[in-house]
C-alpha cells in the first residue's frame, strides 16, 4: 500500500506537468489577453505595447511557460494582474470563504443523501421514494440560481428572517461569538441551496447501490443473526453500498476550495468561484493558471485519497 501511495505520488509529477502544459497552452490560445480585456478605449497602440512588455506578455509562449513553471516550483505563482497582488494572497483571501461554505454544506448533504438514499432504497417504489425522486429531479432540473432566488424571496424578502446576501452584516464590527453567529446567519441560505442541489444526485447513487446490496446473501445472514434492522441497513448494507460513494467523495476535495460561481454571485459570498470566473473573463492569466494548478493538485490528491480509502474500505480490492 505504501508503495502504491508513493508510486501514485510520483505519478502526480508528470500529470501536473501535463496539466500545466495544457492549461498554459489554453491560456495562449484563448483569444485576447489582459490588455485586450481592458475597457479602456483610450489605450493607444504604443501604451498597449508598453504594458504588454511590463507584464511580459510580449515574450514567446515557451519562454513564458518556462518562467512560469520555474516560479511555480518555488511557490511563487506570480502577481494577479487584476488584483495587483500575489496570486497566493488573492487565493488566501477568497478560498477560505468558499471552503467554510462548502465544508458545512458537504457535511450536511452527505448526511442527508445517505439517510434519504437508504430509506428510499428500503422502501423502493413507495410514496416516500417517489416523492424523493421527484424532489431530486426538481433540484437537478432547475438551475441553481432559481432555487437561490426562490429561497431569498421566501426567507429574506417576503418574511425577512435572514439576510439576502453577504457574509457579514454591513459595517458590523463584532468579533468572537457574535461575529460567528452573524456569519452563520448569512450562511444558512447559501448552504441550504448547495445542499438541495448536491444532495440529489448523491441520493440517487446511494439508493442504487443500496438496492444492489440489500439483496445479497450476507444481508440475509445479518438478518438471520437477529440484528436490528437499523444495524442490518446501516452497518452491513451501507458499508458495502458506500464503496462507490468513496469515489464521489474524492471529487469533493477540489470543489471544497473551488467555490460555487453562481451561488457566490447571488448570495454575494466572497468566495473563490467568482474570482476564478472573473480571472477567465479578464484573462488574468497568473491567477487563472495558479488557481487551476491548485485545483488540479487537489483533484489529483482527492482521487488518490479516494483510491487509497477505497482499498482500505474494501478488503477485496488489490490495487496495483
Amino acid at each position, binding site marked *: 500500500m505504501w508503495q502504491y501511495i508513493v508510486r501514485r505520488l510520483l505519478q502526480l509529477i508528470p500529470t501536473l506537468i501535463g496539466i500545466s502544459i495544457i492549461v498554459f497552452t489554453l491560456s495562449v490560445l484563448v483569444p485576447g489577453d489582459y490588455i485586450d480585456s481592458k475597457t479602456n478605449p483610450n489605450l493607444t497602440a504604443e501604451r498597449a505595447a508598453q504594458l504588454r512588455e511590463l507584464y511580459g506578455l510580449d515574450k514567446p509562449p515557451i519562454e513564458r511557460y518556462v518562467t512560469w513553471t520555474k516560479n511555480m516550483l518555488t511557490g511563487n505563482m506570480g502577481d494577479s494582474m487584476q488584483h495587483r497582488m500575489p496570486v497566493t494572497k488573492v487565493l488566501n483571501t477568497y478560498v477560505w470563504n468558499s471552503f467554510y461554505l462548502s465544508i458545512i454544506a458537504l457535511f450536511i448533504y452527505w448526511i442527508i443523501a445517505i439517510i434519504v438514499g437508504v430509506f428510499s432504497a428500503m422502501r423502493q417504489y413507495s410514496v416516500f421514494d417517489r416523492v424523493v425522486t421527484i424532489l431530486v429531479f426538481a433540484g437537478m432540473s432547475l438551475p441553481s440560481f432559481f432555487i437561490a432566488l426562490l429561497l431569498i424571496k421566501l426567507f429574506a424578502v417576503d418574511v425577512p428572517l435572514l439576510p439576502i446576501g453577504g457574509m457579514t452584516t454591513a459595517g458590523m464590527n463584532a468579533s468572537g461569538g457574535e461575529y460567528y453567529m452573524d456569519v452563520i446567519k448569512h450562511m444558512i441560505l447559501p448552504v441550504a441551496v448547495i445542499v438541495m442541489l448536491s444532495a440529489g444526485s448523491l441520493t440517487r447513487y446511494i439508493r442504487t447501490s443500496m438496492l444492489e446490496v440489500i*439483496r*445479497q*446473501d*450476507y444481508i*440475509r*445472514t*445479518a*438478518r*438471520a*443473526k*437477529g*440484528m*436490528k*434492522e437499523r*444495524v442490518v441497513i446501516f*452497518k*452491513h448494507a451501507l*458499508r*458495502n453500498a458506500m*464503496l462507490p460513494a468513496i469515489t464521489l467523495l474524492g471529487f469533493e476535495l477540489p470543489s471544497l476550495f473551488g467555490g460555487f460561481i453562481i451561488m457566490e454571485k447571488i448570495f454575494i459570498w466572497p468566495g473563490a468561484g467568482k474570482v476564478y470566473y472573473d480571472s477567465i473573463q479578464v484573462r488574468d492569466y497568473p491567477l487563472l493558471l495558479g488557481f487551476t494548478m491548485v485545483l488540479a493538485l487537489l483533484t489529483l490528491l482527492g482521487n488518490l485519497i479516494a483510491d487509497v480509502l477505497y482499498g482500505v*474500505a*474494501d*478488503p*477485496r480490492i488489490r490495487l496495483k
Partner: protein
Amino acid sequence: MAKDLLQFRNLKTQFHTESGVVKAVNDVSFSIREGETVGVVGESGCGKSVTAMSLMRLVEAPHGKIVGGEIFFEGRDLLKLKNHEMRLIRGNDIAMIFQEPMSSLNPVLTIGEQIIEPLMEHLLLPRKEARAKAIELVKLVGIPRAEQIVDSYPHELSGGMRQRIMIAIALSCNPKLLVADEPTTALDVTIQAQILDLMRDIKEKFKTSIMLITHDLGVVAEMADYVVVMYAGKVIEEASVFELFKNPKHPYTKGLMKAKPVINQRQERLYSIPGQVPNPIELGDNCYFSDRCESCMDICKEKQPPLRTQENGHKIACWLYEEGQGQ
C-alpha cells in the same frame, strides 16, 4: 417423550418466475422435538433449503413468498409474528447455518466483527468480552490462528474455514433450535467429526434441537434421531433414524440408500435412480416420483399419495403402502 419445539404445518412456499410459479415447498408438515436432531434429506432441489429459509422467514421477497401453512415455535406461529418479534428469535432462539458460506459472509466486515455482533446484540456482552468469546468460538470450530482469523476478511479464508465461521456464528448464542443447512460439506472428515461432536455436545448441554439438512447419509446416521425425506417439495417419508436406515420403505429412499458409495465396498458403477426430478412448475396431481419409480402403478400417475403413519411411527407417502393398494 419431549414436547414439540417446532412444527411445520402445511407449509407452502412459492417463487414467481418468468416461466411460472415454482412450488418449492409444497405442503410440508413435520415437527422437531426439544433436544432432538432431525435430519432432512432428499433430492437436490427438493426444497430443503427453502423450508429452512421459510422457518427463518428469510425467503427472498418479493418474488418468493410463503403462501400458506403455519410454523409453530414454542406454541407461537412464527409466520404471524411482527418483524421485531421475529428478529428477537432469529440468531437467539433459532440460528441458521447457510448452505453457501462464501456469499453469506459480509465481504467488508472482518470475521471477528461478524461473530461479535449477535453476541453483543442478544447476549448483551460488552465488546471486549464478545471478542474474547469470538476467538474462543473460532478455536472451538477448529480453526487455527484464531486471533488472526478474527481480523481477516472472508475472502481470505478457505471454503471450509468460512463454513466453520458460519457455524461459529450460529452457535454463538446457544440457540434452542439450530438449523444447519449442509454444515459440513466443505469440511474434511476429521474436522467434520469434530464439528459433529461439537454439535452433539451443545445439544446435550443446552438441549438444543437441530434441523440438519444434509446429503451425507453417514452424517445423518451418526447425528440424527429422526429423519425426514423430501422429494419435489413434499415430505415423502419420515421415521426414526434406526427405523429408516433399517427399513427404508419409499422407493426413493431405497434408491438413496443404494446409491451411497461406501468405503471399502467399491463397486465398478454406482447405482443411481434413473430419470429426473419433475419440473416444479408443471407439477400435476400424480405422485411426483412416479416417472422414476420402479414399482409405479396406475394410481401413482393419477393421484398423490397422502403421508400416512404406518407401524413404528414410520410415515410414508406412497401408494404401495396404502391399504388396498400395496402388494
